[in-house]
C-alpha cells in the first residue's frame, strides 16, 4: 500500500512537470486568442524552430547555454512581430475564418523552411542540467523537471503582474475586451497586436527550449503543440489561469493513465489520452472550466 501511494505521488509529480510544459504552450495560444481572437496554428512551428535554433547556436556556433537562450528568445520575439506585420496585418478586418487559414498556410511554410534550413535529422540537445535525479521525500525528479516548474511559475507571476499593473498590459486587456473602444481611448491596437504576437512567440521559444531538454530535437516537435489543444479547450480558450490549470491537469491525467493503463493495455495509451480527454470535454463541458458561454442578442 505504501509503495502504491508512493508510485501515485511519483507519477503525479512528473505529471505536473509535463503539465507545466503543456501550460507554457497553451499560454502562448491563449494570449493570441485573447487579444486577437485568432487561433495560431503556426505555434508548434515556432516551438520547433526555436528549439532547433537554440541547438544550432550551441552545437555549431559554440554559444554557452544562457546566451543561446537569450538569442533564441530575442529572435523569436522579432519573428512574432514580423509575422504580425507581414502576414496578419494585411488580414485586418477579414473574417476570422480566413485569418485562421492563413496561419495554417504559415505553419506549413515555416515547417518546410525549417526542414530546408536545419535538415531532418534528430539531434540530442546538450542539456545544461545535470543528469542525476533529485530525491525529495522518496519522489524522484530530474533537475530539468524542477526547472520547468520554476520557470513556468515565474512566467505566470510575471504575466500576472504585467497584465494587472503595467500600462501595456492594461492596453492589451482593453484591446481584448473591445477593439473599437480601445482605439477610441487612444490605445494603438497595432502596437498591442505586435506586442502580443511577440510575447506569445517568446513563450513558445521558452517551451521549445525546455522540450529540447526532454525530447529529441527534430522537425516533429511541432506536434507537441497539437497535444496542447486539450489543455486550451479544458481551460476555456481565452483564460490565462485556465490555460495553466488545463495544462497541468492534462499533464497529470496523461501520466496517470500512462502509469496505470499502459501495463494493462500495452504501450501508447499515454499519447492518445489527451485527445480522448479533448473529446470528453467537448461532449460534456464544451466551454471548459473558465470559458464564458457567449450569449448573442440579435
Amino acid at each position, binding site marked *: 500500500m505504501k509503495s502504491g501511494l508512493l508510485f501515485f505521488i511519483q507519477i503525479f509529480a512528473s505529471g505536473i512537470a509535463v503539465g507545466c510544459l503543456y501550460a507554457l504552450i497553451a499560454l502562448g495560444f491563449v494570449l493570441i486568442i485573447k487579444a486577437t481572437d485568432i*487561433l495560431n*496554428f503556426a505555434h508548434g512551428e515556432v516551438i520547433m524552430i526555436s528549439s532547433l535554433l537554440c541547438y544550432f547556436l550551441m552545437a555549431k556556433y559554440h554559444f554557452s547555454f544562457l546566451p543561446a537562450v537569450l538569442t533564441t528568445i530575442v529572435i523569436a520575439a522579432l519573428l512574432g512581430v514580423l509575422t504580425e506585420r507581414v*502576414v496578419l496585418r*494585411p*488580414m485586418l478586418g477579414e473574417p476570422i*475564418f*480566413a485569418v*485562421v*487559414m*492563413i496561419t*495554417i*498556410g*504559415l*505553419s*506549413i*511554410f*515555416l*515547417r*518546410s*523552411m525549417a*526542414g*530546408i534550413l536545419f535538415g531532418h535529422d534528430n539531434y540530442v540537445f546538450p542539456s545544461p542540467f545535470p543528469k542525476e535525479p533529485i530525491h525529495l521525500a522518496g519522489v524522484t525528479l530530474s533537475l530539468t523537471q524542477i526547472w520547468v516548474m520554476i520557470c513556468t511559475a515565474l512566467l505566470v507571476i510575471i504575466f500576472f503582474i504585467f497584465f494587472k499593473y503595467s500600462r501595456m498590459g492594461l492596453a492589451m486587456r482593453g484591446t481584448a475586451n473591445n477593439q473599437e473602444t480601445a482605439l477610441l481611448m487612444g490605445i494603438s491596437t497595432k502596437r498591442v497586436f505586435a506586442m502580443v504576437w511577440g510575447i506569445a512567440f517568446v513563450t513558445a521559444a521558452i517551451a521549445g527550449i525546455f522540450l529540447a531538454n526532454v525530447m529529441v530535437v527534430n522537425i516533429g516537435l511541432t*506536434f507537441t503543440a*497539437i497535444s496542447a*489543444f*486539450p489543455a*486550451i*479547450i479544458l481551460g476555456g*480558450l481565452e483564460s490565462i489561469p485556465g490555460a495553466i490549470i488545463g495544462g497541468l491537469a492534462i499533464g497529470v491525467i496523461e501520466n496517470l493513465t500512462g502509469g496505470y493503463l499502459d501495463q494493462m493495455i500495452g504501450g*501508447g495509451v499515454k*499519447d*492518445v489520452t*489527451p*485527445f480522448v480527454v*479533448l*473529446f470528453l470535454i*467537448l*461532449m460534456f463541458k*464544451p*466551454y471548459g472550466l473558465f470559458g464564458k458561454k*457567449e450569449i*448573442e442578442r*440579435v
Partner: protein
Amino acid sequence: MAIRSKTFRESYYEDIKLFQTIWIRVWISLFLILLATLPLWGNPYVIYLINLSCIAVVAALGLNLLIGYTGQISLGHAAFIAIGAYTTAILSSKVGLPFWACLLASGGVTAIVGLGLGIPCLRLKGLYLAMATMSFSVVVEFVIITWDKLTGGVRGINVSKVSIFGVLLDSDNKMYYFLIGLTILTVLAIKNLVRTRVGRAFIAIRDRDIAAEVIGVNVTGYKVMAFTISSFFAGIAGAMYSYTMGYIHPEHFTLLLSVQYLAMIIVGGLGTILGSIFGAVFIVLVPELIKAIARASEVLIPALKGKYDEEWNIAAFGLLIMIFLVFEAEGLYGIWGRIKTSFKNWPFTY
C-alpha cells in the same frame, strides 16, 4: 431573340438551372469527348496525372462543401481519406469484396466516423472543429500504426485490383475511365446538392448563422450533415486512392495531406465547384511545375544542382495558401470569371 448583354434571369428556376446556357452544354460535351478519347492519344504520364487529379477532385469537393459552403474548418481530411483507403484495402484484399461494395463501405464507414466526430464538435461556434479534427488525424495515424494486425502498421498494406464485370483494371488507362466516371458522378452529386434546400441552408449558415437559425434552419443539424457528407466523399476518394496506388502506408495520410487539400480549395476558390476542380488539378501539378523550374534553373545556374528537395513543394503549398488568401480570395475561379467577363463584354471594359 434579343442579344444577351449580361445574364438575364427571369425566374428563380433559371437561376439554379444546372446548365445556364446552351453554350455551357456545348463546352461540357466537347470537354467530355476530349476526356473520353484522351487515353487513345495522350501521354501515359498525363493519364497518370489525371488519375491523381480525379482523386484530388473528389476529396476537394467534399472539403469545399464543408469549408467553402458551410464555413466550418476541418484539418482532418487526410484522416478521413485514410479511413476510406484502409476500409477498401482491408475489405478488398482480406475479405475479397467487389469494388462497388468496397466503395460504398468506404464512404459509409467514413461518414459514420464523421458523424460521431461532428456531433460533439459542431454544437459550438468557432474553431473547435479545426482543433478536434487536427487531433483526430493524430489519433487515426496512431491507430493505423498500432493496430497492425488489421492495417499492416508501418509495413503498409496491398490492395487488390478492381475488376468491373470481369474486366480487370490493371493499367492506368483502364483505371482512368473508372476514376473519371466516379469523379463525374461526384461533381453532379455535389452540384445538385448545392442547388437544393440543403445546399442553401449550408450557405446561410456560412454567411450568417444566427439569421439562418431565425429563418428556421437547424444550424447544428446542417453543420453535422455537411461534415458527414464531406467525410463520405473523403472516404470515396480514399477508396479511389487505394485502388489507384495498389499499396497504402500510414505515411501517405499525414497532416500535410490535409493542408494540401486546404490549399486546393483556397487556391481554386472557396464555395465553388469549378474552383475545387481547378484547385485540385493545379495543386496536383504544382510539384511537377517546381521540378520543371528546378531543372531549368539547374541548367542556368549550375550551383543549384541537386538542391531540389521535396520540401519546396510543401513550402509552395503554404505560400500559395497565404498568397491567395491575401491577394485573390476568390481563387482561380475568380480569375477565370474575370477573364470570361472581359471576353464576353469585349470591346467594353465591363
